[in-house]
């Protein structure tokens, strides 16, 4: 992936080790809009050739790059309230790209791209030690416990842009990186050096019927996410751990914001 960046359309101010960022792709998810329908999960699986099992009842070993978690305020009826947390990979930046998973991978099979802020996974290099999974507090990383098998009639609908993964390696959400590559190629062909906000959108963003997911460049003031992340109601999951995620959540309900992180018993939430 890195090699492709070297020849990318962008200039090189975001060189691999300069720690300057050309882009910083991220999401803002409005939890007050999310109905928990799961369209994002379905779109993600289809887009990224995510394999599935014949029997999907055991969720502890099935792969869901985007997964919708359910949280409740713990109060009895009629005060009970629920909230759904769609959880893609957070593409943590940590401190200077020191994401929890990137720093631990012994074979450099996962990488923090300083040009896009995307945490990649190199499937052909991963040897399946699962240390990155132990490191990720969001459970955003999944292991291929089985060989990927698609029923014959569904093989035709696999995406040619995303390589399928083999048994024994770890995979996770890539912010639909292939779409970024596509958008960049198109821009290059048209003689442009920049891609527009609409040209690169993730599958989950486009699939959300409620429009709860907004995707874009967090550094770019012209992108919607730039403004949305600054809302006083915006927060990130487990921010206190220092993971520095690029996925923001938004909710006007204070208990939802509190559910996004750990607090001591009498501590006030953010």
């Amino acid at each position, binding site marked *: 992936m*890195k*090699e492709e960046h070297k020849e990318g359309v962008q200039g090189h101010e975001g060189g691999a*080790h300069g720690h300057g960022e050309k882009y910083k792709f991220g999401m803002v998810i409005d939890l007050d809009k999310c109905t928990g329908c799961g369209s994002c999960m379905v779109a993600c699986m289809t887009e990224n050739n995510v394999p599935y099992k014949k029997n999907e009842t055991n969720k502890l070993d099935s792969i869901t790059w985007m997964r919708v978690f359910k949280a409740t305020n713990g109060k009895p009826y009629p005060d009970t309230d629920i909230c759904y947390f769609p959880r893609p990979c957070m593409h943590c930046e940590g401190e200077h790209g020191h994401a929890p998973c990137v720093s631990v991978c012994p074979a*450099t099979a996962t*990488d923090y791209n300083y040009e896009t802020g995307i945490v990649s996974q190199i499937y052909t290099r991963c040897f399946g030690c699962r240390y990155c999974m132990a490191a990720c507090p969001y459970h955003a990383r999944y292991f291929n416990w089985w060989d990927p098998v698609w029923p014959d009639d569904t093989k035709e609908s696999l995406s040619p842009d995303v390589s399928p993964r083999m048994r024994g390696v770890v995979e996770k959400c890539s912010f639909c990186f292939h779409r970024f590559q596509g958008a960049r190629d198109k821009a290059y062909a048209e003689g442009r050096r920049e891609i527009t906000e609409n040209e690169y959108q993730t599958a989950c963003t486009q699939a959300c019927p409620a429009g709860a997911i907004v995707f874009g460049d967090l550094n770019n003031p012209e992108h919607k996410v730039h403004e949305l992340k600054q809302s006083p109601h915006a927060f990130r999951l487990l921010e206190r751990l220092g993971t520095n995620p690029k996925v923001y959540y938004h909710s006007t309900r204070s208990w939802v914001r509190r559910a996004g992180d750990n607090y001591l018993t009498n501590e006030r939430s953010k």
Partner: protein
Amino acid sequence: MLPFVFEWHWDLGHVVFHGGLWYALSILGIGMTYVSVKTYFDVKRGGH
């Protein structure tokens, strides 16, 4: 492992890590070579 792997870059971590590693490997290598060579000459001389 080796500097021609494409993401290789020199930093303090590499120097410390590979310094320690090759230090240990050198001792093992030199030690075993010494023992083998000495054995060869000892046997040739008909010692022991």
